[in-house]
C-alpha cells in the first residue's frame, strides 16, 4: 500500500519547479524523498565531494559558496541546491553549509534525471542558471505574473501571406508581389507534401530581387529557388511582439514568417512593429508640438504617466519604452525652445541645444531629472549674446521643471554658465577631461559622454561626439580611469527573504535598481563602446557594436544585453505599478514586492554585471592605475 505523505507533498507543491508538475509526479517524487537534519554551522556538501542528490530546504537557511570561498547564495525554505553538481559529473561545484538548524529533503539523482527527461518545466528550471536562465526569462513566453509581455505577434497580422511554388520564374514572382502589393513572398516546394506543413523552403524579398537579381544581372526567367533565402528565421504566432523584434534585430532580417502549427499564416515586417510601438508615443509627441504655452505643456505632461503605464502594459521591451520616453522628452525640449524663441526673438547666433545622459541614450524612464547643455557658435561674445542665452536656458529649464523633469541636483543644466560653451570651448573641455581624468572629470563623463542634439544645429552634437571618440579611443590611461570609476557601483549578490543581500552578507530593505543595476551597466557598456570607437548612443546598440567588434569573451555580450533588458524591465514594471496604485514612482524596489520570477532573474542579472565588471578591470588594467 502506498503511503500518502501529504505533509511533504503539500510542501513541495508550493515551490518551483514542483508547482508545475502533475499530481502523480508529485506523489512519485514525495515517495522518493529522504529527509536529513543539519545542525546550524555544519557542512552539508563539500567541494569535490560526490553528489547524488538534489536538495530542497524544508526549513532553515543554507549558504552556498564559490570555489574560492566567496558567498554565492543564501537560500531558505523551498529553495533547491545541488543541481549543478548532478549535471556535471556528480562533483560538488558549490559547497553548501547550514547557517541555521536545517531540515533538508534529498531527492535521488535517478528521479532527478528522469524528471528532467519527462518534464520540460522541471528541466528548464534545474538545468539552467545565471545567464542562461536570464536569456530564457527575456525570451520565453512565460505565463508568469510578469504581465509586461502581453501582446502577441498574431495581433500584427493583417493580410494573407503570399506563397508561391519554387519553380516559378523570378519575373512571375515579382509580378505577383507587385499585384498583391507586398514586399516579400514565401516559397514552397509543391513536391514535398509534408504532413506537418513544413513544405515552405524559402523567402524572397524586394531586397533580394534588387541585390541578387538586378544588381547581379541575372535573368528574370530562372526559377526563384535560385535566389531565395533558405535560412528561414520564423516565429510561432503565439510569440510576443518583443520576441519578434529581438529575432529581427539578432538576425538582421526585415521580414519574419509567422507560423501556426508549423504552417505560415503571415509575414510581419519591421515597419509593422514600429507602427505598433509608436502608436502611443507618436500621438503624445504630436500633441506636444501643438501646445501654445508652457502652462499648456505642463498640463499635457500630467498625462505622461498614463502614456507610460499604457506602454508598459502593452509592450515588453525597455528599449521601446526608453526610446519613446526619450522622444517625448526631446519633444518637450524642442517645443519649449520654439516657444522661447517666439518670446525672446530670433537667436543672435546659431546654437545647438544638447540632451545628455539617459535621454541621449534613448533610455529615459518616467523618473528622471533634466541634464542639458548648449553648444554656441564660435562667434559667441559674452557681452553681446550672454543675456539672450541665459534667458533662453532659464525659459527651457523652468519649463521642463514645470513638465515634471526636475532640476538636475548636480546643476548640469544649460542655466549653469559653465555648460554654455562654444564649439571650441567644448572640444577643449573634453580634451581636458580625457587627458587629465580627475575625479570630477570622470563623474562628468558618465553624463557628458552620452550626448545628442535636440534643437538648432544638431549636426554640432554629432561632430562633438566624433571628436570625443577620436580622443578617447586611443587614450588607454583615460579608459583605465573610466573603468576603475565604473567599478565603484557594484550590484548586490541577490535576495534573501525580504532583504537585498550584499556580497559581505549584509542585508538591506530595498534596492535602487538604477544606481545598482542599469547605471553601472550603462557605464561599463560605454567604456567598451569608447574603446572600439562606436558611434552609437543607446546601450543596446552599443552592445551590438561591441559584440560585432569581438572584444568580449564569447556570449558575454549577449548576457549583458539580457541583463540590461531584465533589470530595465523590472524597473519599468515597478514604476508602472507605483503609478497605477497612486504612489510616486521611484527607482527603489523592496524585495517583498518582487515576484519569484523577478528575484531569480535579477540575481542572475547581477551576477552577469558583476563578472562583466571583473572583466572590465582586467581588460583596461583598471587596478594598475
Amino acid at each position, binding site marked *: 500500500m502506498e503511503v500518502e*505523505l501529504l505533509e*511533504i507533498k503539500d510542501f513541495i507543491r508550493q515551490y518551483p519547479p514542483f508547482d508545475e508538475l502533475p499530481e502523480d509526479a508529485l506523489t512519485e517524487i*514525495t*515517495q522518493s524523498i*529522504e529527509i536529513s537534519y543539519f*545542525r546550524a554551522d555544519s557542512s552539508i556538501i563539500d567541494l569535490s565531494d560526490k553528489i547524488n542528490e538534489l536538495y530542497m530546504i524544508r*526549513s532553515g537557511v543554507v549558504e552556498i559558496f564559490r570555489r574560492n570561498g566567496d558567498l554565492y547564495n543564501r537560500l531558505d525554505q523551498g529553495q533547491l541546491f545541488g543541481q549543478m553538481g548532478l549535471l556535471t559529473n556528480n562533483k560538488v561545484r558549490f559547497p553548501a553549509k547550514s547557517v541555521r538548524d536545517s531540515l533538508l529533503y534529498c531527492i535521488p539523482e535517478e528521479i532527478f534525471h528522469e524528471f528532467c527527461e519527462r518534464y520540460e518545466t522541471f528541466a528548464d528550471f534545474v538545468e539552467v542558471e545565471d545567464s542562461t536562465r536570464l536569456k530564457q526569462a527575456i525570451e520565453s513566453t512565460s505565463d508568469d505574473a510578469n504581465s509586461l509581455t502581453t501582446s502577441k505577434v498574431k495581433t500584427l497580422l493583417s493580410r494573407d501571406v503570399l506563397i508561391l511554388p519554387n519553380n516559378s520564374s523570378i519575373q512571375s514572382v515579382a509580378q505577383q508581389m507587385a499585384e498583391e502589393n507586398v514586399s516579400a513572398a514565401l516559397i514552397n516546394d509543391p513536391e514535398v507534401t509534408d504532413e506537418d506543413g513544413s513544405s515552405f523552403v524559402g523567402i524572397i524579398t524586394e531586397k533580394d530581387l534588387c541585390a541578387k537579381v538586378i544588381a547581379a544581372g541575372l535573368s528574370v526567367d530562372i526559377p526563384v529557388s535560385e535566389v531565395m533565402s533558405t535560412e528561414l528565421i520564423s516565429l510561432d504566432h503565439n510569440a510576443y511582439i518583443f520576441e519578434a523584434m529581438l529575432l529581427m534585430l539578432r538576425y538582421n532580417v526585415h521580414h519574419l514568417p509567422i507560423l501556426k502549427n508549423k504552417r505560415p499564416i503571415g509575414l510581419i515586417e519591421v515597419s509593422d512593429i514600429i507602427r505598433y510601438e509608436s502608436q502611443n508615443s507618436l500621438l503624445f509627441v504630436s500633441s506636444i508640438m501643438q501646445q501654445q504655452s508652457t502652462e499648456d505643456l505642463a498640463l499635457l505632461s500630467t498625462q505622461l504617466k498614463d502614456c507610460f503605464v499604457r506602454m508598459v502594459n502593452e509592450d515588453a521591451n525597455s528599449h521601446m519604452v526608453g526610446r519613446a520616453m526619450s522622444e517625448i522628452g526631446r519633444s518637450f525640449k524642442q517645443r519649449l525652445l520654439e516657444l522661447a524663441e517666439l518670446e525672446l526673438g530670433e537667436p543672435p547666433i546659431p546654437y545647438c541645444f544638447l540632451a545628455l545622459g539617459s535621454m541621449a541614450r534613448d533610455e529615459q524612464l518616467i523618473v528622471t531629472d533634466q541634464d542639458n547643455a548648449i553648444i554656441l557658435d564660435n562667434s559667441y561674445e559674452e557681452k553681446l549674446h550672454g543675456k539672450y542665452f541665459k534667458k533662453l536656458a532659464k525659459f527651457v529649464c523652468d519649463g521642463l521643471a514645470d513638465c515634471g523633469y526636475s532640476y538636475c541636483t548636480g546643476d548640469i543644466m544649460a542655466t549653469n554658465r559653465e555648460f554654455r560653451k562654444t564649439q571650441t570651448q567644448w572640444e577643449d573641455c573634453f580634451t581636458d577631461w580625457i587627458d587629465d581624468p580627475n575625479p570630477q572629470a570622470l563623474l562628468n563623463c558618465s553624463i557628458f559622454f552620452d550626448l545628442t542634439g535636440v534643437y538648432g544645429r544638431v549636426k554640432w552634437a554629432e561632430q562633438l561626439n566624433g571628436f570625443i571618440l577620436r580622443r578617447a579611443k586611443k587614450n588607454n590611461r583615460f579608459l583605465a580611469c573610466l573603468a576603475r570609476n565604473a567599478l565603484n557601483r557594484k550590484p548586490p549578490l541577490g535576495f534573501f527573504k525580504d532583504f537585498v543581500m550584499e556580497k559581505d552578507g549584509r542585508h538591506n530593505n530595498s534596492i535602487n535598481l538604477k544606481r545598482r543595476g542599469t547605471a553601472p551597466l550603462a557605464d561599463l557598456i560605454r567604456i567598451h563602446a569608447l574603446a572600439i570607437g562606436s558611434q552609437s548612443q543607446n546601450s543596446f546598440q552599443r552592445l551590438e557594436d561591441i559584440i560585432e567588434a569581438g572584444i568580449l569573451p564569447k556570449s558575454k555580450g549577449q548576457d549583458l544585453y539580457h541583463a540590461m533588458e531584465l533589470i530595465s524591465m523590472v524597473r519599468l514594471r515597478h514604476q508602472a505599478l507605483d503609478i497605477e496604485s497612486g504612489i510616486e514612482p521611484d527607482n527603489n524596489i523592496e524585495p517583498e514586492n518582487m515576484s519569484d520570477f523577478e528575484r531569480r532573474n535579477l540575481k542572475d542579472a547581477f551576477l552577469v554585471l558583476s563578472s562583466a565588471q571583473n572583466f572590465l578591470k582586467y581588460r583596461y588594467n583598471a587596478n594598475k592605475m
Partner: protein
Amino acid sequence: MHNFTNKEILNWRAFLELKQQLSKDKRLKNFYSQGTYHDETPIRDVEFVALDFETTGLDAAKNSIISIGLVHFNLRRIFCKKSKSWYIDPQDNLQEDSIVIHGITHSDLKSAPNLLRILEQLLDELAGKVIVVHYRRIERDFLDSNLRAFIKEGIVFPMIDTMQIEADIQHQKSLGFFNWFKNKKSHSIRLANSRTRYNLPTYQPHDAVTDAIATAELFQAQIKHHFSPETELKKLWL
C-alpha cells in the same frame, strides 16, 4: 549496566533470546529470533524504525489502536520510500471525541483490518530494528495489551523514547543551583514543542505516519545537538 537515564536496566539481547524460547506464538517467536544489536553498538551503525500509533483513548487496557504509521531511518536519512501506514479496526466502540482528534471517521475504518490481520506485516517491518517512539507508554503498552486481547500473549522489545530523551535533557538543564534558585520550569516535552526547540517545522498532528516522520526528525536533531554518532545504543534504549 546503566543507561543514560539510570531508570531501566536490561540486557536486551539476552532478553529477546529468552523471549524467543518462551514465546508460544509463531509470529512472535519469529520476531524475537531476529534479535537486536549489541548494546555497545555506536548509533551511527544502527537501523531504526520510527513508530506511531493513534488510539481511541489513553488507557491501554480499555482502548484500541486505530492507526499505525512507521518509517525506516538511520542517523543520516529518513526514508519516505520505506514508510508504511495502516488503519486498524478498533475493538472498542470508537468514541466520538477521538474521531474529532484524529480526523479518522467510521467510514475510514469500515474496511480496515483488525490488528491480527496486519500483525505479520508489522512485525516484519520492526524485526531486528531499533524502534523509536515519542512517549513509549502509548506504543509499548498498546501493542502489548491489544495483542494480549487477540492471542493471549504480549510483546516487548527495546525502544528509544525521544520524549524521555527530551525530559532528561530538560531535567539536566534545570539542575544546578542557579536554575533552582530561579525556579526555572522545564519546557513542554510534547512532540510539537520539542521539535520547536530544534527549529524543526510544524506539522499537522494526529496522522500516524506524519508523527512517525516527525519523531525520526526529532531524534536526528537530538543526536546532532546532544550526542554523537559514536554514542552507544545502551545509553539511549529503554
